[in-house]
C-alpha cells in the first residue's frame, strides 16, 4: 500500500469530500491563499477549489467558528480550522453553548454537519499557548464527538466520516504526527465513530492511548517486550466520545491491568474518565489499580528541560510502567 503523511491524508479527505459535495467548505485563518494552513495541510486546496470554498478569514476566532455554525444550520458541511487548538478558548462559547447543544435544543430540527479541526499537542518547545491537548476539557461537554486520529490512515478515514456525520465533531490533530507516513489505500474506506482498534495484541497489560501517544505506546511496548518480556496490548479508541468501552473491557478482561496514556494534563483528562469507567464496569477484571500516565498538571513549558518532564516521553512511560508492574530493567515479567 502506498504511504502518505498524516497531513496529506487530511488534505485528501477534504479534497475528496469537496469534490463530491459542494456544501463542503474550509474556513480558517491562513488556510488558503497565503499560507495553505499553518502546517501546510491545505496545500493545493485553494488552487483547486478557489476562494469561495477555501476561505481565509480575519483573525477573529469567534466569527470563524460562527461561520461554521451558521453555514451548518443552513445545511452546509463546513470544516473550520482553528490554527492551534489552544486558541479554542477565544471561541469557546460557540462550542459550549451552540455547537454542542443545537441539535438537542432545536428538538432535532437541525443536525449539524460541522467539523472543527484542532491541531494540538506539543510541537517541541511551542510553549504554553501553542502546545495543549484539550480533549479532557471537551469530553465534559455533552453533545460533541471527539476524534483523535493517530496516523495517516486514521486521519483520512475519520475525517471523511466526520464531515457528513450530522453531529458536530472536534477533530484533534497532533502537530508531531503531520509529517509521519503510513499506509493509506487509494480506494474509499470509512472508519465509524465509536469503534476503537487494537493496535497491537498482548496479554500482560492493556494500554489505552490516543493521538500521538499511540506512537509512544508502540515504542514503549517494543522496549518492554524486549527488555522485560511484557506483552502489551495497545488500544487506540480513535474517538473518545463516543468511546468503545467494549473493546477496552475485552482487553482488560484478558490482561487484568490497565494503563491509560495521554498527552493532556492528568487531572480530569480522558484517563480519568476511562479509569472511572473501568472501575465501575471492569472492577472484577482488574488485578491492579488503574494507572494513568499523562502530562503533569502545569502549563506546557517552552524550555526542553521542563517540557520533557511535563509531557509523557517514552522514557518516562517505560519507567512508570515498570514501576507499576514492579519490574526493573532486565527483570522479566514472568519471573
Amino acid at each position, binding site marked *: 500500500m502506498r504511504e502518505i503523511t498524516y497531513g496529506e491524508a487530511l488534505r485528501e479527505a477534504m479534497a475528496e469530500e469537496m469534490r463530491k459535495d459542494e456544501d463542503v467548505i474550509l474556513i480558517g485563518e491562513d488556510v488558503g491563499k497565503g499560507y495553505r494552513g499553518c502546517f501546510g495541510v491545505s496545500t493545493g486546496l485553494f488552487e483547486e477549489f478557489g476562494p469561495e470554498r477555501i*476561505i481565509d478569514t*480575519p483573525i477573529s476566532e*469567534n*466569527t470563524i467558528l*460562527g*461561520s461554521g*455554525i451558521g*453555514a451548518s*444550520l443552513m445545511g452546509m458541511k463546513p470544516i473550520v480550522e482553528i490554527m492551534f487548538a489552544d486558541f479554542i478558548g477565544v471561541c469557546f462559547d460557540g462550542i459550549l453553548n451552540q455547537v454542542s447543544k443545537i441539535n438537542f435544543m432545536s428538538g432535532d430540527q437541525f443536525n449539524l454537519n460541522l467539523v472543527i479541526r484542532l491541531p494540538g499537542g506539543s510541537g517541541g518547545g511551542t510553549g504554553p499557548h501553542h502546545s495543549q491537548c484539550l480533549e479532557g476539557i471537551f469530553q465534559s461537554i455533552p453533545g*460533541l464527538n471527539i476524534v483523535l486520529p493517530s496516523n495517516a490512515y486514521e486521519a483520512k478515514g475519520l475525517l471523511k466520516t466526520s464531515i457528513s456525520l450530522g453531529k458536530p465533531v472536534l477533530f484533534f490533530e497532533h502537530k508531531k504526527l503531520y509529517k509521519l507516513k503510513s499506509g493509506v489505500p487509494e480506494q474509499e474506506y470509512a472508519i465509524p465513530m465509536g469503534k476503537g482498534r487494537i493496535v497491537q495484541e498482548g496479554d500482560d497489560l492493556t494500554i489505552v492511548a490516543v493521538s500521538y501517544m499511540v506512537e509512544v505506546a508502540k515504542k514503549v511496548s517494543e522496549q518492554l517486550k524486549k527488555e522485560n518480556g511484557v506483552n502489551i496490548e495497545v488500544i487506540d479508541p480513535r474517538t473518545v466520545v463516543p468511546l468503545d468501552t467494549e473493546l477496552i473491557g475485552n482487553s482488560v478482561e484478558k490482561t487484568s491491568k490497565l494503563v491509560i496514556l495521554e498527552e493532556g494534563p492528568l487531572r480530569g483528562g480522558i484517563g480519568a474518565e476511562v479509569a472511572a469507567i473501568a472501575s465501575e464496569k471492569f472492577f472484577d477484571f482488574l488485578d491492579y489499580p488503574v494507572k494513568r500516565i499523562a502530562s503533569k498538571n502545569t502549563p506546557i513549558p517552552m524550555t526542553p528541560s521542563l517540557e520533557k518532564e511535563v509531557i509523557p516521553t517514552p522514557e518516562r512511560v517505560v519507567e512508570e510502567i515498570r514501576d507499576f508492574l514492579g519490574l526493573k530493567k532486565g527483570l522479566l515479567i514472568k519471573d
Partner: protein
Amino acid sequence: MEFSKALLLDMLEKMVLIRRFEEKVYQLATRGVVHGSVHLCIGEEAASVGSTMPLEKKDYILPTHRGHGQGLQKGADPNRLLAEIVGRKEGLCKGRVGSMHFFDKDNNNLGAQGILGAQFPIAVGVGLAIKLKKMDSILACYFGDGTSNQGTFFEALNFADMWDLPIIFVCINNLYGMGTHYEDTCNIKVHQKAKLYNMEVKTADGTDVKDVYKKMSGLVKKVRKERRPAMIECYTYRFLGHSAFDNRPYRPKEEVKEWKSKDPIKRLEAELVQQGIKEEEIEKIKDKIEEIIKGSEEFALGADFPIFDPSMET
C-alpha cells in the same frame, strides 16, 4: 410609502397577537406554569412587527432572548410556541428549551440563543451560506442595545462587510440591558458602530410600526438586490421587567410613564380610528386574537410533557 387599510389592520392584528400572547405567558408565569425565565417584549411590538413583516418566507431570522414577537411574526404557530414555553412535547423544540431558545426551522427561524452576542458569529455563517448557495434570501439578525457591546458584534460587522453578506442587523433598542442604561455602557450609538463598516444604517421610531416597516422595507429591498449588509436601530421600550419577575427599580417612573403613553398598539389604533376605521373592526380583530390565544392556551396546557429518552444522551 402608502399604507393600505388592509396592511394597517394586518399590522394591528399582528401586534395584538404578540401582546395577548405575551400577556398569556406572563399570566402563566405568575401561575407557576412556566419554568425558568421569560423575557417579554410587551411595549416593543411595533419594532417586532415592523421589522419582521417586510421579510419574506424565504428569508431567515436569528431572534433574541426576547424573541417571541420576532418569531411569531416570522410565522411561528402560537400553539406550538406556547407549548414550547410551557415545556410540552408538542412545542416547537419538543418542549426542551422554552421561551429563550426556540428554533422554528419551518419558518426559517434559526434559533434564539440564551448567550448574548452568540447570534453575531452565527449570522455570518448564515449569510455566507446564502451567498455561496446563491440564494435570493436575506437574514435578519436581531439583538438588543446592551448586546451591541459584545466584541462579536464588530467581528460580524467586519465579516459581513468584507464578504458582502446579505444580513440586516436589527437592533431593538429598549434603552436598558437588564438594570443598566445603555448610556452607562457606551457613548457610541449602536447604529454608528455599524456605520463604521460601510453599511447603510437607519434609525426608526420603534413605537411607530409604520416607521419601522417603511425603513425596514427599504433595507430589505436594498439588501436583497445589492447583497450587502445593512442595519436598523429601533428605539422602543419594554413595559415590563427584564424578565417576568423583575421589579425594575432602576427605571424612573416618569420615563416609564412617558413611554407607556407611546404604546405602539394604542398609537396605531388611534390612527386607524382617525382614518375612519370603525371601532368594531378593531374589536373584531381583538376578538379573533382572543380566540387564538384561548386556543393556544388550551393546546399548550393540554399537551403532554416530553419523556426522557436515553438516545438524548450524547
